[in-house]
């Protein structure tokens, strides 16, 4: 999507009067298509929905957050989680409506317990205490 955006900006730039040095303002960011603005969504993931009820006994599912739309901050090799969070915080401050607040890394999650069958039909009840979000962004 950034590729597309850059082409769009070049076109804008070429149509602007030369010498106008106008940075990317909040109104410009994602304004082109509100529907695809970067948003955080909440979704309940049911293990039954995944067809996993034959081996996961409990819980029935879990609450997940995920981001959708033009989230132009993919976390990649040259942008670590901290830089990612800083950049996203800045853009959020400029345009809080369109860009969700960052969930910056590392974030400790609540401990969860899961009850499930293993391959040998033994039952395992495991506490996952030290859960840390490995990715950073809006989810």
């Amino acid at each position, binding site marked *: 999507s950034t590729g597309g955006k850059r082409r769009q900006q070049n076109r804008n730039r070429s149509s602007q009067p030369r010498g106008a040095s106008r940075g990317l303002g909040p109104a410009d960011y994602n304004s082109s298509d509100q529907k695809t603005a970067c948003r955080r969504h909440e*979704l309940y993931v049911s293990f039954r929905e995944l067809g996993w009820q034959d081996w996961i006994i409990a819980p029935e599912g879990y*609450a997940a957050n995920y981001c959708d739309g033009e989230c132009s901050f993919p976390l990649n090799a040259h942008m670590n989680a901290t830089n990612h969070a800083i950049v996203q915080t800045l853009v959020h401050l400029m345009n809080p409506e369109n860009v969700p607040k960052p969930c910056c890394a590392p974030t400790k999650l609540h401990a969860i317990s899961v009850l499930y069958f293993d391959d040998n*039909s033994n*039952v395992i009840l495991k506490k996952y205490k030290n859960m840390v979000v490995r990715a950073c962004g809006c989810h």
Partner: protein
Amino acid sequence: AAGSHFSPDGTPEAHPGFVHRRLRTHEKREMQKEILSILGLPHRPRPHLSHGKYNSAPLFMLDLYNTMSGEEKADRLRSARTTQSSPLATFQETAFLNDADMVMSFVNLVEFDRELSPQRRHHKEFKFNLSQIPEGEAVTAAEFRLYKECVSGAFRNDSFLLRVYQVVKEHPDREADLFLLESRRLWATEEGWLEFDITATSNLWVMSPAHNLGLQVGVETSSGQSISCKEAGLIGRDGALEKQPFMVAFFKVSEVHIRAAR
């Protein structure tokens, strides 16, 4: 959060406020990958479930899960239960549970009961596979559980001496070498779960799977007559699912230094 709450009757309900909708195919794939990585599993387990044959007491473990997920909810669950046969977690198990990182209940691998030994002594065998325990997990407590029903008929006024042995060595043509773990006197009319502490034995099995030759249970009447477990009211694999024998072990990441059994 795990995202499950309990309605007053104890059934889990969805997380309030989170959207329910059908997952798209790529979302499903992403979610499955994420969940397996969080659970530390290389692939999605494929248990072979058939009632009675591979029973590892899921009801008992669900009870422990509910206890773990919220003390007060579990109390409500307990008060809602009326059947005595449900193997509810005892106070001691709840203490182990708070301390444990993982709890496992195991399938009894012995498929065919050999009731009579070469010396015509009634006994029942049990074997559990503890070789797949993740590295670094140590057994902090382990129990072997049997359910006993009230006996009527010939032995109804009798008392029994029940013995649980660890099989130390097997011989093709004579009795196996046994190590007595516990002996317990019971009234024929007693009913309920019997718990036997097999922590040291389980740790030996985890550290040295070759020594895992299982357990044997034998019962005698007050006059010393060897009788079958069924005659003593002990439920076996052919009994109701929630009353079948099983083993449960509580694990903690190996801060616990266990001396090998002598």
